[in-house]
């Protein structure tokens, strides 16, 4: 029961702190829908949309959301597109064609956050329309619909 409650809690991010996806740190915190079970050091999406609920201190200034991870790209799936929405705003979009660790920074303006109960809240929706099941691509037995392997997340105050 407690675990179920935890799963629906948002992920609280202190500015400047790098959080790790996977079992040891973030776990299921803030992962609303469209996620695989956390693994060691990473968590995959599962499906074309993954929703993540973030909170931080009230009235944040302009910040950078820094995401690192690795796209699911193979010979049969040579490209992944990722589009990020935050509280309904389109934040950023990328096309990834190499299976390497990448870092993406997204500028978050103060007015994009919602003020809820003394915290700033951001409902992130990560669209990965090219997610695919590896087993459908003869790329192993994995039946999850994979698009991006999330490794770290950080809200970094924008200096100056």
């Amino acid at each position: 029961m407690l675990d179920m409650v935890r799963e629906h809690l948002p992920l609280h991010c202190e500015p400047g702190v790098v959080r790790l996806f996977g079992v040891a740190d973030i776990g299921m915190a803030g992962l609303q829908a469209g996620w695989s079970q956390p693994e060691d050091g990473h968590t995959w999406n599962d499906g074309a949309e993954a929703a993540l609920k973030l909170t931080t201190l009230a009235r944040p200034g302009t910040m950078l959301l820094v995401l690192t991870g690795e796209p699911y790209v193979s010979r049969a799936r040579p490209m992944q597109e990722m589009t990020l929405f935050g509280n309904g705003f389109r934040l950023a979009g990328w096309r990834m064609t190499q299976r390497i660790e990448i870092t993406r920074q997204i500028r978050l303006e103060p007015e994009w956050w919602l003020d809820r109960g003394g915290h700033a809240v951001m409902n992130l929706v990560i669209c990965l329309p090219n997610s695919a099941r590896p087993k459908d691509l003869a790329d192993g037995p994995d039946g999850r619909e994979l698009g991006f392997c999330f490794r770290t997340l950080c809200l970094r105050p924008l200096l100056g």
Partner: protein
Amino acid sequence: MLRPDLRLDGWCWSPERPQERLLVDLLVDDHPAVSVVAAMFRPDLLARGCGDGRHGFAVHLPANLPQLQRECLVTARERQSGRIFGRLLRPGATGPSPRERAAAAAIAELSDDLARLHAGQPAGRMRAAFGRLAATLAPRPSGLPYDADLLVPAGLRLARVERPAISLVLPDGSAAAAAGRIAALAPALAAARAELLLVDRGADPRLALLPAALPGLGLLAVRGAEGLAGTLALAAAVARGRWLVLLGAAPLCPSAAALLALARMIGDGDGVLLAAAAAGGLADGMSGTLALPAPLGVLFGGPTELCRRLGAAAADDAGPAGLALRARLLGQPWRCVTEPRGA
């Protein structure tokens, strides 16, 4: 370890809170740079008994930090306890200047010529100082029971020395070897009013546990601080003793002979008591007076004295033809210290 792309790898685990994922603050020249939850799995930590092994971290320092554009000190600190567990010096982006490269070449040249280093007055003073130090710090045979798996010998206690006369820096290595050497030195430490600083370069994660078991033991983390100058700087910065000793300095420094060169350079008086080297680097006449466990290191005047000497030498700039070393001491900026060749 700090890579050229500013990625910093490390780990943080506390035996007092073994299940907890600790929050690590990284500071660059004392300015907060980034924080990270140490929760990454590392099989080496699991193998060494550090909880479930999920206590590592790998994080990129923000490249736009102005402090990172020059030589800087990166500090890793556990947030809840405030304990600093790692420091490293990062060279500036521009690399060594032509003058510093010339200095390094001069040191290398001197290192190949031990006869020159052992000649003359400085060696005489060193030899006399050897005797004084040996009389003070000679280790006695230890009958203490010791179990390598327990790290700390049973019954071993280190008293915290409030105002140490000497700071001994013990090189890193395996935790078992370190514990053995501590056991050998312990009886002499209190009598000599000496504090012991254990150098930890991440070779064995259990080294970090020793200070918790031995309250009088200090931990000097020098991960990434490579070379003579970096190690010296850190040792001088944290040592509280009037004198600073690097025991078994060879693993800490690229060349034991280079230590002799440095000792000679700054030893134009009573400040330098001792300069000795590991196997092959020590003159016979000097080694006979030694009672410390070999390999022996180098002893300089205390931090204040060393700083004063380096400052005085810097003022007497002899240019690129002189012997030079970069040094950063007690928070002072890096500087190039020079001395005319053959002076």
